[in-house]
């Protein structure tokens, strides 16, 4: 446990391993109610999504979600001083081991899971000691430092509970408990008696809590705000004897008021197991009664009846010694169904990308507006806009022979309407037609990003029996190149300062064309590489941000946008001719009877 830890001056920057919306929201609420300017929970590590929505007061905010702790940006990992771990018990050892490596400035952590194997908890305890981190848990509701931070479910998971617990300002009584429910009960008892809490720590009811009662007592002794300690312990284990020794030897000098649960065990011949893993007396010395006596002998005030605690604390409280501090209140709020970063109404007027609709329309070219909408931000770089404009023009149509146009034409001649015929064409876009831009961007991002040699990259693909997206064309060959690729290359050299993805793609082409002449870098692969380069060099997109564009299929969006014009042109053209239903002739089909 941290020797230097100064609870009252903690500057919490918290990462959550796993997501427990109720607990996280209550931490943010506490954070907000204290009047802090920004949320102290900065990231969630969880699978399956990129951000999670929470309230910050009455506004909705997005907390970024990362698939792995290692994916959390370095800067945030350096800043993190707090960790909430709400992952399952089986992952605790692995995730905490990683945490201690990746969060060098971590000071406090809470492990929520029950049923962590004992030896895993001990291994985490050893690491915590080595890295000087205070860990509440396993099976703990966390750590509360009133006025500073709520880490975990402690104090409640709903705003009215936080208010009822009266924990927005601190006091002089430390609450230390092996039980999660009882830590909250004790917080209420302390504040209800007119005192305040200096900090409250739920150690967790496991046999081997990572932070021991003795360590918690020493923390209370060194905490400048704490005047006295209220302790809830249970039968089982020998912790209370260690506490008694600390008190007798003068290492803990602050007054201790304690309740040790489990005298009811005296009813039974066989030592019973109560609700917590630890609560099992193996012999007489581990009984609640014996431990109470040990603490009494060491000078603690030990209550036989839990309710006497409240009486004792009330007697101590001077009138008004702990008044409820006004906090920033939270009123009724409700979650929106949809979050949009593209557009929405502000004061009744439509806004696009943060600006009033008409001003956006007036300030942008069509290509400029389209690329801005697709990227979700107003793009001002003339090079990006010019290059986008060129691609949009280039991809508009490539003849009535291609799958998309054929489908649109067939649908149009069958008498279908515009929207149906257009979608019939669009539905052909996939890995073999038009839809390879995204897959190619994925490949170039992976290849160039991992510094793989093009030759090894190709070998990797062929070993898996795959075809490389963005490579190969039905019609064009190395000796009869695609004129669009040539034109793109010219356009690109005017518009980009970076070309590492294009270089990589061309390196791949050099390998593949040495095997087969039509395995050229095709127009899909070229566009993918060039877009990656131009976004990186002109708009400072990081590899992670480019990866996100691949994941959300941005690169295919450009093709679909452009080609939609061509497909609609074919539809309108067919409707003008109005030739009637298209039917294939017998020669068009080879029938092989089975």
């Amino acid at each position, binding site marked *: 446990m941290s020797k230097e830890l100064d609870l009252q001056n903690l500057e919490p920057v918290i990462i959550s391993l796993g997501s427990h919306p109720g607990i996280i929201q209550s931490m943010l609420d506490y954070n907000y109610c204290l009047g802090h300017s920004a949320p102290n929970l900065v990231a969630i590590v969880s699978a399956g999504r990129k951000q999670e929505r929470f309230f910050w007061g009455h506004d909705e905010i997005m907390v970024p979600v990362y698939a792995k702790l290692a994916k959390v940006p370095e800067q945030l990992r350096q800043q993190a001083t707090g960790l909430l771990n709400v992952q399952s018990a089986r992952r605790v050892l692995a995730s905490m081991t990683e945490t201690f490596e990746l969060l060098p400035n971590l000071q406090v952590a809470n492990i929520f899971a029950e049923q962590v194997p004992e030896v895993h908890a001990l291994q985490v305890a050893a690491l915590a000691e080595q890295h000087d981190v205070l860990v509440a848990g396993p099976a703990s509701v966390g750590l509360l430092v009133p006025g500073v931070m709520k880490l975990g479910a402690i104090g409640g998971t709903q705003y009215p509970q936080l208010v009822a617990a009266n924990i927005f300002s601190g006091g002089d009584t430390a609450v230390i408990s092996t039980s999660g*429910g*009882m830590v*909250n009960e004790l917080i*209420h008892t302390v504040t209800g008696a007119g005192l305040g809490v200096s900090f409250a720590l739920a150690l967790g009811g496991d046999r081997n809590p990572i932070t021991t009662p003795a360590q918690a007592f020493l923390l209370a002794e060194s905490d400048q705000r704490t005047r006295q300690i209220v302790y809830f312990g249970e039968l089982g284990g020998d912790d209370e004897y260690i506490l008694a020794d600390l008190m007798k030897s003068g290492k803990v000098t602050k007054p201790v008021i304690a309740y040790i649960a489990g005298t009811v065990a005296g009813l039974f011949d066989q030592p019973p197991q109560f*609700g917590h*893993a630890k609560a099992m007396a193996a012999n007489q010395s581990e009984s609640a009664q014996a431990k109470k006596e040990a603490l009494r002998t060491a000078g603690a005030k030990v209550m036989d*009846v*839990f309710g006497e605690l409240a009486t004792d604390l009330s007697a101590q409280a001077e009138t008004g010694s702990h008044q409820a501090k006004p906090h920033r209140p939270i009123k009724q709020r409700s979650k929106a169904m949809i979050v949009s970063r593209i557009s929405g109404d502000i004061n009744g007027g439509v806004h696009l990308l943060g600006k009033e609709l008409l001003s956006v329309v007036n300030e942008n070219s069509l290509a400029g507006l389209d690329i801005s909408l697709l990227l979700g931000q107003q793009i001002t770089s003339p090079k990006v806009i010019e290059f986008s404009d060129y691609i949009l023009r280039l991809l508009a149509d490539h003849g009535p022979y291609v799958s998309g146009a054929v489908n649109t034409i067939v649908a149009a001649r069958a008498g279908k309407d515009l929207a149906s015929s257009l979608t019939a064409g669009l539905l052909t876009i996939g890995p073999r037609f038009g839809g390879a831009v995204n897959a190619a961007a994925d490949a170039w991002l992976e290849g160039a990003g991992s510094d793989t040699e093009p030759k090894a990259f190709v070998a990797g693909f062929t070993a898996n029996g795959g075809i490389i997206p963005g490579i190969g064309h039905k019609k064009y060959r190395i000796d009869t190149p695609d004129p669009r690729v040539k034109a793109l290359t010219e356009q690109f050299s005017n518009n980009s300062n970076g070309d590492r993805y294009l270089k990589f793609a061309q390196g791949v082409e050099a390998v593949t064309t040495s095997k087969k002449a039509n395995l050229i870098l095709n127009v899909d692969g070229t566009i993918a590489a060039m877009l990656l380069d131009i976004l990186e060099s002109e708009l400072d997109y990081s590899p992670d941000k480019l990866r996100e564009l691949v994941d959300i299929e941005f690169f295919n969006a450009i093709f679909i946008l452009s080609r939609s014009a061509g497909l609609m042109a074919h539809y309108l053209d067919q409707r003008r001719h109005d030739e009637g239903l298209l039917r294939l002739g017998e020669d068009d089909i080879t029938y092989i009877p089975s």
Partner: protein
Amino acid sequence: MMVDMPRQKLSEYRAKTIISKALELPYKGWSVDIEAPLPAQLQSAIEAGGTFALKVDQGVKGRFNQGLVALNVKAADLVEAAEQLKSKGYQWLIVEPMAEHAPGDERYISFMSDRLGVMLQFSASGGVDIEKQASSLQQVRVNDATDWEQLAQKTAINSRQLQQLTQAFLDNYFAFMEINPYLASENGLQILDSAVEVDDAAAFFVDSWQIDDFRSHSGHDQTPEEAVVKELDDNSPASLKLSVLEPNGSIFLLLSGGGASVVVADEVYNQGYGKQLANYGEYSGNPNAEETYIYTKQLLQLLLKSQASRKVLFIGGAVANFTDVNKTFAGVIKAIDEVADKLQAAGVKIFVRRGGPNQEAGLANMEVALAKHGLLGAVHDPDVPLTDAVKEALQEVDHE
């Protein structure tokens, strides 16, 4: 008590299988469910003749002194011997071919896990009366500085096997491993009896044992109500525990939270009502309304079965951090609604004290329901101290 323990006793059969494998020793024995047909291999061993040792395999201590062991059982008498052990209220046996030895050779060794690692205890005077030989026990902490050769001399187990035992203890997430007695002769190590407790939280990380290998014996037959709750608990991410202490008790507890439930039970005991306490149990970890409904239904069945003249139900807990009071109480209320007339006829009063998420709605709904059925003792929020509410409920029953 039948509450699930994080440390579980493994069947001796499974313990010996694991230990023998670690020591590269052959092991011959059978785990027998007396209520099921005999395993085929044991059947053929019986047909081949010989003598056997039968022992109750349900984690019971002091089996020999309790007469739960049958030695030198002839093949022809095996089934009858098993039936006799069954009649004492047991289901699981371990059956092994009988091994002859002189009593003086019996030794003791045990491994125990604690916060500092593994503690090894041993004695040259093992056997059924080891508790009386406490002074002969020596203990050594296992760590990098352990002198295995010296230990080998003291235990008469060679240093390689000692280290294999230690490794098996760690690899299999054992919390306690006792081999008592064992025989050490020129022929090597022979394990006669062994007892192992495992950390059941590690079930995911091992394949040498499973939950099926856990053995326990409650001392009383599990009531159908306890069995239902056990089943419920096994299939829920939340925790739901119920143990009957006195079937004809007058004080029934429906409690939430591992800590608060003990505080409430303590208070009953401290006030001198311990003998009238019918049950202990708790639910925690935010169970859903269906789960609290089933749980409450079982508890109310027990309450209605009790022959006590005055009966009281205390529904209580601390101020929950995340368990939803309204949701969990919805299940409780539904179960009360179903047997309200019977409860009323029995003159049962119900007292409630609880806090936590949505406590206002939960407590209000509870109060309305109890008043409607004429069962209302009192309903309190956390402004009333937990133990004060218990005291109030205890006024309803006669002091012993």
